[in-house]
């Protein structure tokens, strides 16, 4: 078992636990926080899979944009049913199992996750054994290679995506606008 495999297993368990919490959490805000934590775990998985650029983009877009947007939408609305949701009778057991987790443990999770992420980025500087690297045949993909692909071979889809983002932006503005009568 190399360090990489141990790291992968830890991150996988962490991510799945956070995802499961985001599915069964009785309050929607807690679900959104669980989702954020799961995104962080997936960013760590990208680092283990030697895709550091995707890990950074994951933190930027998924945690920074999508999860924050969901949190905004939940917190800015005053509907009680958005904040808390009645749990179906069949799933009370799951809820009780989660309620049994002590509160201090739950409070420790976010700082621990942040520290683990920092440690992961600076893994070798800290002096921990190096993660196993593939031989020269499998040189990791550099950001430069990604940029070359993105702006040569996939330039047209890239531009199409920018149009999609723009139309989504305008569409969201139009949909969420208050009707003035």
């Amino acid at each position, binding site marked *: 078992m190399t360090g990489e495999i141990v790291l992968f297993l830890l991150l996988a368990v962490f991510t799945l636990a956070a995802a499961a919490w985001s599915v069964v959490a009785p309050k929607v805000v807690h679900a959104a926080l669980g989702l954020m934590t799961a995104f962080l775990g997936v960013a760590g998985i990208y680092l283990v899979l030697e895709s550091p650029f995707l890990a950074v983009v994951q933190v930027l*877009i998924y945690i920074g944009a999508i999860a924050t947007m969901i949190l905004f939408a939940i917190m800015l609305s005053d509907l009680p*049913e958005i904040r808390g949701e009645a749990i179906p009778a069949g799933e009370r057991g799951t809820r009780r199992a989660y309620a049994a987790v002590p509160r201090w443990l739950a409070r420790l999770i976010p700082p621990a996750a942040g520290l683990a992420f920092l440690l992961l980025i600076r893994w070798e500087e800290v002096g921990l054994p190096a993660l196993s690297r593939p031989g020269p045949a499998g040189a990791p*993909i550099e950001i430069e290679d990604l940029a070359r692909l993105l702006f040569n071979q996939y330039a047209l889809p890239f531009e199409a995506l920018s149009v999609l983002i723009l139309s989504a932006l305008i569409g969201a503005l139009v949909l969420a606008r208050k009707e003035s009568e």
Partner: protein
Amino acid sequence: MVPQSWVLVFTAALFGLGLWGSLRATNAVRILMGIELMLNAINVNLVAFNRYLADQAGQGQVFALFVMTIAAAEAAVGLAIFVSLARSYKGINVDKINILKW
């Protein structure tokens, strides 16, 4: 190197959790969160296959980037729809919203 089957088991579990979450919820925001989890699982799958089967080419990572972009656009439009639904129907319980039902 992590065996690829382990990564696939992980992404299958993550996708399953997302699917379960989006199917059991009646709150539209929760359905959106389930969809985001599923998209994340797909992204990890793309990156994993890229790494294990075509190590020199970065196509899988590029496609994962595209998926992320589309997920962001989808979340923006979805949340805007929920905001306007919440305004006109006083709620986003998908069992009660049936305006598309004939």
